[in-house]
């Protein structure tokens, strides 16, 4: 049985089609990434899959339970960690846990045992009697995740789980998610951190303007983007003044300055390495490092969604 089975799902808001006839399935124990730019239809899809919103047409099942007609049974096996740390600030960490367990019908003995175990694992046990309003953003996110695990879900929806967190929280959350994956929990992950999806996911789907434009394993997707090979070169002097001349080297499709490195996009890395070496000699530059890179998942994402990379992230093309 598939953990998630989506068939011809459509969601319209008036004349706007937020999700346009998408179909996909997620196997039990699979970690599935759902990527897309803002407004692509990710949140709408998750709201439908979690039974908060109803589809205009099409079906979605969770472990065989139709989310529209058998909503409660479908929800019973899932945990939902939304982008916002939606804990109750006026309740203690323990009270938040107990409330979540009660909502998911976890018995008293089980919820006390599970709450203790999870709070310790997430390094929150010492603060269990403190109200959540005094917690840092990372602690609140950890508490959010703990609350969603109290019913031992078989399917976990993670919406931007590590976005904007401190290093400690980030590491704890990633470690716990890795453990959950090893335990066979199915993970449906949406993230803006494409590298996170690349590292964690068995498969990813890329959604744009309500349509799924690619769905495959990250490595398979990268192979479809042959033109995105690149090399990174760092000189002892990395002035942006070199950009213009470097971009005129043969076989260079594009050059970007990224920190103390220049990144060359090309279809022939070997040719570029020779040309860069000549350039360095002529301009009396010393090459500190040189790295050849295959296409990244981010390159695939950018290519498929029609976005463009800028120095500070991904931006939509006007």
């Amino acid at each position, binding site marked *: 049985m598939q953990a998630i089975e989506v068939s011809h799902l459509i969601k319209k808001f008036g004349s706007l089609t937020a999700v346009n006839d998408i179909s996909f399935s997620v196997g039990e124990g699979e970690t599935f990434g759902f990527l897309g730019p803002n407004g692509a239809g990710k949140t709408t899809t998750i709201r439908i899959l979690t039974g*908060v919103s*109803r589809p205009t047409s099409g079906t979605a099942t969770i472990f065989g339970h139709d989310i529209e007609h058998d909503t*409660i049974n479908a929800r019973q096996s899932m945990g939902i960690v939304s982008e916002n740390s939606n*804990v109750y600030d*006026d309740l203690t960490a323990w*009270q938040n846990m107990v409330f979540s367990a*009660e*909502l*998911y019908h976890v018995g008293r003995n089980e919820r006390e045992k599970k709450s203790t175990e999870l709070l310790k694992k997430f390094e929150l046990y010492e603060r269990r009697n403190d109200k959540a309003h005094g917690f840092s953003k990372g602690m609140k996110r950890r508490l959010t995740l703990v609350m969603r695990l109290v019913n031992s879900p078989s399917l976990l929806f993670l919406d931007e789980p590590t976005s904007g967190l401190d290093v400690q929280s980030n590491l704890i959350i990633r470690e716990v998610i890795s453990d959950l994956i090893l335990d066979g929990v199915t993970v449906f992950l949406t993230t803006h951190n494409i590298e996170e999806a690349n590292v964690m996911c068995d498969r990813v789907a890329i959604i744009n303007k309500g349509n799924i434009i690619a769905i495959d394993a990250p490595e398979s997707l990268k192979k479809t983007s042959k033109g995105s090979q690149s090399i990174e070169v760092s000189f002892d002097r990395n002035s942006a003044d070199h950009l213009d001349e470097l971009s005129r080297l043969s076989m260079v499709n594009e050059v970007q300055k990224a920190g103390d490195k220049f990144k060359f996009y090309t279809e022939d890395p070997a040719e570029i390495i020779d040309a860069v070496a000549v350039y360095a000699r002529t301009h009396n530059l010393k090459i500190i490092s040189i790295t050849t890179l295959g296409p990244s998942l981010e390159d695939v994402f950018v290519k498929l969604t029609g976005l463009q990379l800028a120095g500070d992230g991904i931006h939509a093309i006007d």
Partner: protein
Amino acid sequence: MQSINQEGGVKRLSCEISAAWAIAKKDMRIYYLKSNIIVAGILFPFFMFLAFAIGKNASPGTLIPGLISITLLFSSSQIEPVSIAMERRVKTFERLLSAPISLYSLVLGESLSGFFYSLGIACLPLIAGVIIFSTPIVHAAILVISMIFTAFCFATLGTLFAAYPTENVGEIMSMLNTVRLPLIFISGVFVPISSMPHIGQEIALISPLTYGNDMIEYAYTGKSLFSPLLDVVMLMTFILIFQITANYLYKTFNE
């Protein structure tokens, strides 16, 4: 097979009730001591009552039934418009919507917190009547029943208005007050329904406060416009209408 289904049904019902109770407990812990809840739940009905009672040639003790009625009206419908709007703002309401419980349990749980709060607050004028003004209670059991049904009816009304999809508490409150304030005047709290013009008497029939207040009057004086049984039936009808409408609105507005 039938007994398995029945067992499943009983288990489901038990889960729904315990989830509704969990929501009610959560609201009690978080919102009962919020300053705006206390001010609106206690002071607003009290001053409202004073504004109309002062100048009347009636002993203060005889005004207790009316004071209990408007306290129930205002305090029971006070919690949910605040709690649900605030929870929309901090995104905890979405979590309730995605929990494995029915919308009926969600509406019931939210209403229960207003219900218990209101019963607690309404005990203040009740006790004041007994201790300070020695106001006699003719039918104590009817008084308890009337307070329970009236409080639950208006708690459900509060949950119904809170379905409006806004994060702004004031927006819901202003809509709610356009209904609550006229109810005071058309339900026989200050002016007996029998003294109202014909059109007023007809309008009074569609106000749930009419039946709640009528039963409370009966409990205190032994006199009423309708029989207490009819009052209970009407209040139950309003509760059902509010609950079903709230359920429908939460579903619709979520889209």
